[in-house]
């Protein structure tokens, strides 16, 4: 991750933030675009979860990692506190690896 990449992401993000406060009275965002942007954010995050859980490079990540993420998903659905969700995911994966599951 180069400094240029960080700066590009930062500048673009700041532009998204600033447009409303600067142009507020003169421009509006349609409900359709608003909806699409919200769905796009969810789509990207779920895709990151899926690829992050299942793949390593171009290969299958093995069973230990997705099992940990699955445990996290169940706990998050049951509204478990955030730290517990993360520790349970890492813990499940670590224990499975200790037991020889790749």
């Amino acid at each position, binding site marked *: 991750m180069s400094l240029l990449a960080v700066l590009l992401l930062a500048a673009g993000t700041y532009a998204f933030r600033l447009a409303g406060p600067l142009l*507020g009275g003169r421009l*509006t965002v349609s*409900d359709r675009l608003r909806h699409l942007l919200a769905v796009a954010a*969810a789509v990207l995050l779920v895709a*990151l979860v899926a690829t992050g859980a299942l793949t390593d490079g171009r290969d299958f990540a093995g069973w230990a*990692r997705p099992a940990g993420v699955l445990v996290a998903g169940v706990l998050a659905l049951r509204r478990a506190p955030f730290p517990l969700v*993360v520790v349970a995911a*890492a813990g499940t994966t670590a224990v499975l690896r200790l037991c020889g599951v790749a």
Partner: protein
Amino acid sequence: MRSLLRTLERATLRDIALVCLADALVGASFGAISVSGGLPLWVPVAMSVLVFAGGSQFAAVGIVLSGGGALAAVVTGLVLNARLLPFGFTVADTLDGPVWRRLLGAQLLTDESVAFTLLQPDPRRRRAAYWVCGLALFLIWNASVLVGALAGGLIGDTDALGLDAAFPAVLLALVLPSLTDRRTRTAALTGAAVAVAATPFVPAGLPVLLALAGLLFAGRPDTAAAATSTDAAAAEGEPRPLAEEVH
């Protein structure tokens, strides 16, 4: 600052504190995962100050750590943060005043600060909620990322500790509340299937962007919800202050 605090009700201040606490844990995870994954300390720290948007920070670092290019990381982060654009228009009335104040206040715009602002009944309290929540989150987020990054440098074998599962787990906990909407869920699951299927065949970083094909299932905005948008925070896709979502 003190007069801003006095403007808000105790319950609001308590809720803001709780959200700060939750975000502190997310920030510490971000710092630790970034540095233990092999990035230099300045990357998570600089990102947190300059980008200040948790989801996109996790996304960009995740893509780079899995071997993706910087361009894919930047584009993914920007598409994620595009949702801040409508939020900016939503709180434009609150963020008024001299240009320097708007320039400064814009950086504090997050899912959380917008959500707390919209919950307030009058302009004075909306302004107070925006600045208190925004400033508190900015300070706590950056401090916790630094602490996490310092701790991440001490971790040895990250795979043995299962830390590679922590990154998708964090994102899953963040995105789950928005999946209650059926069309969002269909779009997201379709996109995820596309991304996983594409992974063996395309360069790293690209599969996640291909997931945007799932937007074909996004449908139209829920007009019923839009019509009753007196409580805009409850509308679909808008932030919920107490869900542990990250800006």
